């Protein structure tokens, strides 16, 4: 810790020193005919996204490696989309989820990135490009699966291409397979199906998230798991299917099944840590967070599989010239390993596996990605203890988890209707 501080300090004082010298030289007029101090122009990128990818460590490392200063603008997924629509000039790099693309791309407010300029593009995991795991397992494609919206027909096209092109909507950064989080110490029996979320046994102790487009997918997993209905595509329901799903949820709500709904990471952590809920929709790092508080919490693999999500980078349509070059430099840096390893260590997955692997210790890679028991204690990126030696990651290896994805977060054709029905559910 002290070492990094010292390093940072000396680097900063060095920078200060150089800037001072340059200023002195320019001010004194000794160097005549020297038009401009080019290096003085700061490389700054305004980075709009959810908090998932936004870490101080990532931005610090990026500044160190590339000289690009990242200014984070953090918002919820909904607010990110809203901002793209209403203030496309208020950010340079956009980090958003693939399912938002159905709204964002037709608005014409973002620029597709050129795959040729992305060094590691061909090394991006086949999860994104082919819809299968590196081991060849086919991944469920219900909902807005990334490979359905990965390419555009042309540079300024507002249409998704059906086969690979040069123009990529989002360069993938991070993704995960979500499932239910449970409190094994309070449930005291094995949980193996999504249908348990509506099991009256957990009356008043269950929760789902109040983000309609994601919440309804969890609800659909539950409906299907309970054998009530089988959807053609959970991520693109008909009005009747929406009505049916919301009816099941409303009945459960009226019967007092839910303790509360949550909308952000911390709310979900608090609900679980305080014991207000014992089973709920959850994100993997939220489970990790509860566990790091010393409270038993499992990110429970379920037989029906996972609901997955993925996000990636693109740039605002207002970005051009040098700034666009920096954006490419930044994206290339992001895929070059440090950030990927950082995300892997939080329980997410990185887009380029080979570079992330090179930045992780073999025992870390074995624990996080291969589902093997930890050889040594597993630490979070901030150095706090996550798991003691011998622990195995919930859900096993990358192959097992990503291979068991059943559907992806989505925006439905009937999104408008769905949102209204969701409101009725909340008001019921």
């Amino acid at each position, binding site marked *: 810790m002290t070492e990094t501080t010292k390093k940072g300090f000396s680097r900063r004082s060095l920078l200060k020193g150089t800037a001072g010298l340059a200023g002195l030289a320019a001010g004194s007029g000794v160097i005549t005919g020297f038009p401009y101090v080019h290096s003085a122009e700061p490389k700054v990128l305004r980075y709009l996204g959810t908090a998932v990818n936004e870490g101080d460590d990532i931005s610090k490392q990026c500044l160190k490696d590339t000289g690009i200063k990242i200014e984070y603008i953090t918002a919820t997924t*909904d*607010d990110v*989309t*809203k901002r793209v*629509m209403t203030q496309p000039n208020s950010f340079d790099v956009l980090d958003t989820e693939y399912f938002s693309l*159905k*709204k*964002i791309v*037709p*608005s014409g407010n973002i620029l597709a990135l050129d795959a040729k300029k992305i060094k590691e593009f061909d090394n991006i995991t086949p999860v994104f490009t082919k819809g299968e795991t590196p081991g060849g397992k086919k991944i469920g494609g219900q909902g807005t699966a990334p490979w359905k919206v990965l390419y555009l027909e042309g540079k300024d096209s507002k249409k998704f291409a059906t086969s690979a092109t040069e123009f990529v909507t989002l360069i993938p950064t991070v993704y995960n397979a979500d499932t239910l989080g449970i409190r094994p110490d309070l449930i005291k029996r094995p949980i193996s199906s999504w249908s348990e979320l509506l099991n009256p046994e957990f009356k*008043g102790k269950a929760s789902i998230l*109040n983000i*309609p487009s994601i919440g309804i997918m969890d609800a659909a997993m539950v409906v299907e798991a309970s054998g009530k209905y089988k959807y053609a595509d959970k991520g693109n329901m008909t009005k009747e299917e929406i009505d049916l799903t919301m009816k099941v949820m409303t009945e459960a*709500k009226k019967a007092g099944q*839910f*303790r*509360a*709904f*949550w*909308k952000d990471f911390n709310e979900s952590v*608090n609900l679980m840590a*305080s*014991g*207000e809920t014992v089973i709920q929709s959850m994100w993997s790092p939220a489970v990790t967070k509860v566990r790091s508080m010393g409270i038993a919490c499992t990110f429970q693999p379920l037989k029906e599989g996972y609901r997955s999500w993925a996000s990636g980078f693109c740039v605002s349509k207002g970005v051009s010239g040098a700034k666009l070059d920096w954006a490419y430099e930044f994206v290339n840096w992001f895929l070059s390993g440090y950030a990927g390893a950082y995300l892997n260590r939080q329980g997410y997955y990185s887009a380029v596996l080979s570079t992330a692997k090179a930045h992780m210790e073999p025992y870390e890679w074995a624990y996080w990605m291969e589902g093997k028991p930890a050889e040594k204690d597993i630490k979070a990126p901030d150095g706090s203890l996550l798991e003691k030696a011998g622990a195995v990651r919930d859900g096993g290896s990358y192959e097992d988890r990503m291979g068991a994805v059943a559907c992806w977060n989505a*925006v439905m054709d009937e*999104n*408008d209707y769905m*949102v*209204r029905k*969701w*409101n*009725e559910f*909340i*008001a*019921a």
Partner: protein
Amino acid sequence: MDMSEEVLQQASPGLIPGSGTARAAKPTRLSPSFISWLQAGPMMLVFLAFFLIPLVFVVIVSFWDYNEYQLLPAFSVRGYTDTFEGCIAQLPDLCTIGKTYLKTLKLCFLVWAITLFIGFWVAYFLAFHVKSKTWQMGLSLLCTIPFWTSNVIRMIAWIPLLGRNGLVNSGLMKTGLVNQPVEWLLFSEFSVVLALVHLFTFFMVVPIFNSMIRIDKSLIEAAYDAGATGLQTLVNVIIPLAKPGIVIGSIFVITIVMGDFITIGVMGGQQIAAAGKIIETRLNALQFPAAAANAVILLAITFLIITMMSRIVDIRKEL
């Protein structure tokens, strides 16, 4: 005549006795009505720029059409019809919007009644029982202490207190009053009302206190001398004279609670719909016209309540 008098003189001739006549003939003289406009001007501009113009935009946008990702500037009542979708077909059952407004009104009424009750007695105590001005000041300042922390913190502070494993429940369990944790303490209408009362009682105390300290003490003495009981004095003297404060405090509380969705969301475990929540959800789904339509409806209802209240008491006359 010093500088300020000079300015005053130019601005408003005749204001300073004996000096107006000499300059009255000057053609640059400003009319009194212009002066009034000038004085009211800054406030008017602020009001126009930050309230009226945005409000007009909200009303205009509420009549636009929309799709998944943009506003379509064509006249449409879709924002409104979508809001009330199925309301007639569902009769006599209430539709979502009806239920939501009814719930919002119910919460609003409860919070209003409780804050009024508490606020009135706190103000009464400060105005009539605390004799020294210093103590009055000191105690009113004491009321503001909770406002030194943010709204959100004051609200969230209730959660560890009221939760299933919270302080209240563990206390109740230990004393053996209950065997099971009391569930309705948190994420319920109870916790919503509790948090709102906690947050907004102060907005009642201040205006009522302000009205009460202006009551001429001799009126109370007169009532006493005329043989009125304490209750009669309260009902016939104090309450009527404190009415403007009561109405102003009520307007504060009602307007805030009608628009609130954060407290209701957090304390209600996101399970209780509020009028403000509908607007938020619509905004999040990028349905700006529908959100604007809901904002207009909410404004109309709040406005209606306030009009009714000011019918009961003519604030301008009472002030």
